[in-house]
């Protein structure tokens, strides 16, 4: 077996071979527990000290019938000894628990890669369910790969011969047998998983017993070991010193919101209506009640944002979270938050659209609707998370902007970030900057409910404060907050609403350029493409191309200084998982540059190789032109 780096080193019969990085994909039926298997391998590798990145690939929301292709669930991870940014383009190893899983995934397996199949799952009926006319184990489908056939059902059956479990339940342990096998191949410790099983099934001793037995059986199945011609080892990665944990995007985002509210000195009130893939944020926060978190599961997305607005009006920090279709519904209420100038955090975990689209697939196509998707001139800041490990920091940032500028803020994430996991270097909590809110409690002579501070933010008065009673609403208002239809006042308020949002740029850093600060091409990305773009640009530079990279976390308003930086490059390549939305945004704001949109809208992330090719294409094309 090979890996991107070890490829060159001729893999011999060595008993223990060192690899720099390995990409494994576990694939099976939704019922086969592949997500658990993948998560356990991830966890163990993280604890062991590898750098890693994962990519769960869920089937559509509703379970398809067992054994069918739409029912296939996959989990890919890359773990390595050096630092990596992506789950890898193509797996080195594919574990296929049934024919459907094999057929759906074999296409992406690297040439010469290893495929481990559960031969017990290739009976005629299984093949029929997977719509295979011939048996892929025999019809040449697997030519060019190293196939390792294991009769997993049988072996699990034997291993659990004297377990009291029903046969059905015994077979449920298949995934741990497989995991054990892979643990041996990659010399991983069993302990973390053995312990996890104890916790997981606490009280159900039979289950603990059976799964642990299966895990060990897989680890110890000597005869199969032969087939692998030895064992492999992926040494610890040289991660920056610090304390780490594994984290998924939705979870880090939820924790960040709690931290953000705390740094503002406010209670977080998160109001949401469940929707894939954003539900995880609500569910995480609902478990944090002892941190003073209030969660409301609303009757719909409109009620959710409206309750969050009410909560902010009352002096707590209102928050709401949803995905595409829910965002479309919140537009009118976003306008109300903008008009009343109340702080609010709106989380949008993007998914493939339009309309219901493909709820479990990734896309970045809510960018322009986040900025323009409301009636009237209704500006609001937009912050974009790029990976699970920066979700914490950027959630805090969204809270900061909301309370310092008295404005709603959209926090963009996506399906890839939400369910992806990676090691998170834990922040020094004492070093976090506080931004405590000071409610206005007294009327100075020049007090106005819609007076302005140097940021152009209005004062925040908390209902319950004696003598400060005032009324607000969605109608245009005078500085007193009373209704006003005065033409000049409307112009003034419109200008203030815009300038206030633009002022946010004064408090955000100019993004750094990765690579030479001038050259032929600057790749500008945002959101979850960061890992792929980093690796792609590194690769391109390694090939001697003059290309640098910049990643945007604040997409509205844009940071200061971009104009100057962009002008140092001949062209700006903008790769996105949508139809050129960032390109439109940049052209509108910074018209004096040559932008080249590069778009992929398949519900799947870019591949590093694709991006490298595009960079080469663009540069050769331009050199021709020149």
């Amino acid at each position, binding site marked *: 077996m090979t890996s991107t780096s070890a490829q060159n080193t001729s893999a011999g019969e060595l008993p223990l071979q060192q690899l720099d990085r390995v990409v494994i994909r576990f694939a099976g039926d939704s019922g086969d527990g592949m997500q658990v298997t993948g998560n356990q391998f991830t966890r163990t590798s993280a604890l062991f000290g590898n750098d890693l990145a994962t990519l769960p690939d869920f089937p559509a929301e509703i379970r398809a019938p067992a054994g069918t292709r739409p029912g296939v669930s996959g989990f890919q991870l890359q773990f390595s000894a050096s630092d990596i940014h992506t789950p890898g383009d193509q797996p080195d190893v594919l574990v296929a628990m049934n024919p459907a899983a094999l057929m759906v995934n074999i296409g992406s397996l690297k040439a010469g890669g290893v495929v481990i199949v559960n031969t017990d799952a290739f009976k005629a009926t299984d093949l029929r369910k997977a719509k295979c006319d011939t048996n892929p184990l025999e019809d040449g489908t697997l030519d060019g790969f190293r196939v390792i056939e294991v009769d997993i059902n049988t072996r699990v059956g034997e291993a659990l011969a004297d377990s009291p479990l029903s046969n059905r339940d015994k077979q449920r342990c298949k995934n741990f047998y497989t995991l054990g096998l892979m643990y041996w191949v990659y010399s991983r410790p069993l302990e*973390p998983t053995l312990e996890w099983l104890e916790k997981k099934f606490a009280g159900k001793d039979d289950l603990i017993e059976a799964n642990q037995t299966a895990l060990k059986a897989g680890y110890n199945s000597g005869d199969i070991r032969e087939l692998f011609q030895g064992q492999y080892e992926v040494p610890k990665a040289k991660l920056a010193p610090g304390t*780490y*944990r594994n984290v998924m995007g939705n979870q880090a985002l939820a924790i960040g919101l709690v931290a953000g509210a705390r740094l503002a000195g406010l209670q977080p009130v998160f109001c949401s209506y469940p929707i894939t893939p954003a539900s995880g944020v609500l569910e995480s926060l609902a478990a944090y009640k002892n941190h003073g978190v209030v969660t409301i599961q609303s009757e719909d997305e409109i009620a959710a944002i*409206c309750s969050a607005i*009410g909560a902010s*009006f009352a002096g707590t920090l209102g928050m709401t979270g949803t995905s595409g279709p829910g965002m479309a519904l919140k537009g009118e209420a976003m306008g109300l938050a903008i008009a009343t100038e109340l702080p609010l955090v709106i989380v949008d975990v993007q998914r493939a659209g339009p309309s219901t689209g493909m709820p479990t697939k990734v896309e970045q196509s809510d960018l322009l609707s986040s900025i323009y998707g409301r009636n009237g001139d209704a500006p609001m800041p937009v912050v974009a998370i790029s990976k699970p490990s920066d979700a914490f920091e950027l959630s805090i940032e969204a809270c900061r902007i909301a309370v310092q500028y008295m404005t709603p803020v959209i926090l963009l994430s996506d399906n890839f970030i939400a369910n992806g996991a990676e090691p998170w270097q834990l922040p020094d909590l004492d070093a976090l900057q506080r931004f405590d809110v000071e409610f206005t409690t007294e009327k100075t002579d020049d007090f106005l409910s819609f007076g302005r501070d140097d940021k152009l933010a209005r004062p925040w008065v908390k209902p319950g404060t004696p003598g400060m009673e005032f009324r607000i609403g969605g109608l245009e208002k005078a500085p007193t907050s009373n209704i006003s239809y005065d033409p000049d006042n409307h112009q003034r308020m419109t200008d203030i609403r815009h300038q206030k949002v633009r002022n946010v740029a004064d408090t955000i850093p100019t993004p750094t350029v990765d690579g030479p600060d001038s050259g032929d091409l600057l790749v500008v990305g945002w959101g979850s493409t960061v890992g792929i773009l980093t690796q792609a640009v590194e690769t391109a530079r390694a090939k001697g191309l003059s290309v640098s990279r910049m990643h945007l976390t604040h997409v509205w308003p844009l940071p200061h200084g971009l104009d100057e930086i962009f002008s140092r490059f001949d062209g700006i390549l903008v790769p996105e998982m949508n139809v050129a939305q960032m390109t439109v945004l940049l052209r509108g704001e910074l018209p004096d540059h040559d932008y080249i949109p590069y778009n992929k809208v398949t519900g799947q992330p870019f591949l590093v190789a694709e991006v490298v090719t595009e960079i080469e294409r663009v540069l050769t094309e331009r050199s021709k032109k020149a």
Partner: protein
Amino acid sequence: MTDVERPKLTKKDFASDQEVRWCPGCGDYAILNALQRYMAETEADPAKTVFVSGIGCSSRFPYYMNTYGFHTIHGRAPAVATGVKVANPELDVWIVTGDGDSLSIGGNHLAHILRRNLDVNILMFNNEIYGLTKGQYSPTSPVGTKKKSTPMGSIDRPFEPVQFALGSQATFVARTIDQDQKHMSKTLAAAAAHRGTSFIEVLQNCVIFNKDFYASTVEKKVRPERTIDLSPGNPLVYGGDSDKGLRFRGFEVERCAADEADVWHSDTQSPAPAVLLSGMRDDEQMPVPIGVFRNVEAPIYETGVHAQVEDAIARKGEGDLRDLVYAGEVWTVPADEA
């Protein structure tokens, strides 16, 4: 809500500086008047009082009360109020809405706040018309209503607001009349006394687009004969000299002599009796019921929300951010390794 420190406030203290803008003769003036008086009489604390409304002539109400106020968006007042009340249960929250705001675009939020039973009061001004948009029929307009958008008459069967509220598990449901200040204060008092969501339908006259739509029932002269006040614990009597009564026969109501009238109970286990009486509205032979249809106790949403937070803290201890961030398996990469 009262606070010994504060000087006694008068009705005028509850009037905001914003000029009141309703058409001359609009029923909304009477309701505003009654509410400002009520607030003064009950020594309400303006600082702790919040009026939340949607959009409509009725929904301009908060601008005219010298309390905290939020004129939100069309139909969403119950959702906004839910956030306000959950964020700070100390606040005395009033929702003001219209028949279009609450039963057309806002029907779902109304239904959900009623089932959740937050401790807020809802005043629904029912003029059976969209006033602010200049007179289209509403979900409470009777079939055949001829207005701008229905030149040949409306076709939709109207909602019966009381039945809609009962069908949404409301714990307090009442009806009163803009012109009857006495009955309105009485009803406001009952609503305020009730713990949980109180829903009050106020029959309100839109003199411009639906003039005197209910004159035949509530005009001073006819009111005694055409309306009956549901007063819990008292017999169902009405009429100029309280000579008429109502009694139940199975699942029907019939008129009878005052002394044969049944006693009204608004706290029966089933809302069935209230459903039955509210059905009389369309029956010329029967008086239109006003007063308290239903008044029962049930757990309050915001109380439950905060109880869970306190409970969680009591059990797990006041959460520290560190517990969240440094949770699960953490591992350390020592400096020397780098």
